[in-house]
């Protein structure tokens, strides 16, 4: 498979959120604003790339029966690193994302890529796959966060363009489902045309 395909599949064809429906818990939980979505997406990208990298390096050294526990330990370590570093240097973002950072550990997307891709491919492909999937995830979260922020708070990346509040339902949980539903319709439409 050529590397460009490897990289770009994460954005449209196999977008983790809109097409594969992986990692929906943080998707719905943190996307109250575009900035939160982007922060969460980039944190996940880092974990995804690093765990893909490590898993693909040591894949031959891991006996099949204990591969899942090994992957989980590797992923959990990187998540904890992200959590500590974010807490130390980006305290305001950490406050917003809070609980959802440790939850990256159980994000099916990360384990799914380790298991389905990194453990079967070489290091280069694994990094590119992690990067593509991670950025696709970040893109989806930023778009969803942006839509919810525009409709719900009347601002984008924190810049307000209307007075007062927007349609508050979009900041609350039901708005996440509504916005996600419409975005999935849109992406499906695009994918149908290109397919």
């Amino acid at each position: 498979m050529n590397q460009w395909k490897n990289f770009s599949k994460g954005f449209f064809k196999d977008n983790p959120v809109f097409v594969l429906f992986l990692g929906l818990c943080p998707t719905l939980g943190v996307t109250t604003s575009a900035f939160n979505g982007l922060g969460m997406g980039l944190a996940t990208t880092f974990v995804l790339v690093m765990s893909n990298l490590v898993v693909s390096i040591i894949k031959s050294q891991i006996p099949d029966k204990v591969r899942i526990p090994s992957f989980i330990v590797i992923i959990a370590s990187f998540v904890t690193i992200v959590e500590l570093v974010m807490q130390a240097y980006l305290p305001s973002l950490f406050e917003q994302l809070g609980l959802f950072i440790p939850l990256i550990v159980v994000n099916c997307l990360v384990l799914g890529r380790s298991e389905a891709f990194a453990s079967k491919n070489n290091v280069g492909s694994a990094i590119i796959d992690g990067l593509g999937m991670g950025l696709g995830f970040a893109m989806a979260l930023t778009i969803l966060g942006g839509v919810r922020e525009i409709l719900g708070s009347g601002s984008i990346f924190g810049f307000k363009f209307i007075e007062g509040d927007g349609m508050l339902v979009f900041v609350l949980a039901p708005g996440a489902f509504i916005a996600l539903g419409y975005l999935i319709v849109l992406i499906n439409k695009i994918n149908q045309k290109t397919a």
Partner: protein
Amino acid sequence: MAKKESTFINMLLTLFMVTLVASAALGYIYELTKGPIAASKLAKQNNAIKQVVPDFDNKPGEESYKMGVDGDTLEFFPAKQNGELVGTAVSTFTNKGFSGNFKIMVGFLPDGTIHNISVLEHKETPGLGDKMQKNKSEWSVQFNGKNPADFELKVTKDGGDVDAITASTITSRAFCDAVERAYNAYMEGGKK
């Protein structure tokens, strides 16, 4: 390289190595970030204290003391100017919020008058209950300069003197509850 067999000894060694490396890496990162994390927490606390009490020149974080109330603890931060007490910031809580408990910081002058209040953390509804935050609405300003001795800390619906946030009576009640808890503790020996 051939895949390792899933023998007992192989599995044992692999998991041992993986966890060993992981814990070593985490220990290192933890040591590295310990300082900055403590510093940013302290800065946040100092900021909250600064907002709710008059100007001071001591370090309230270092002179703080605690008091157990209602199954939890309140923390007191005395603010002093030239060695004289100018106010006390009290970190207080309520369990009656619309979405569970929340924490606020109330600043009292030495005679018990409320100087200012800031919200530390909460999970109240965006657009409704979160109007108690200073950056969302002016609601909590009504407490400033009031002494709870002659200012009933209850919403007007319950016969008190506090105007509730529109459509967020529960949040307003919880807010009053937290302020009252801080005031009672402060008057009952929280003042030093």
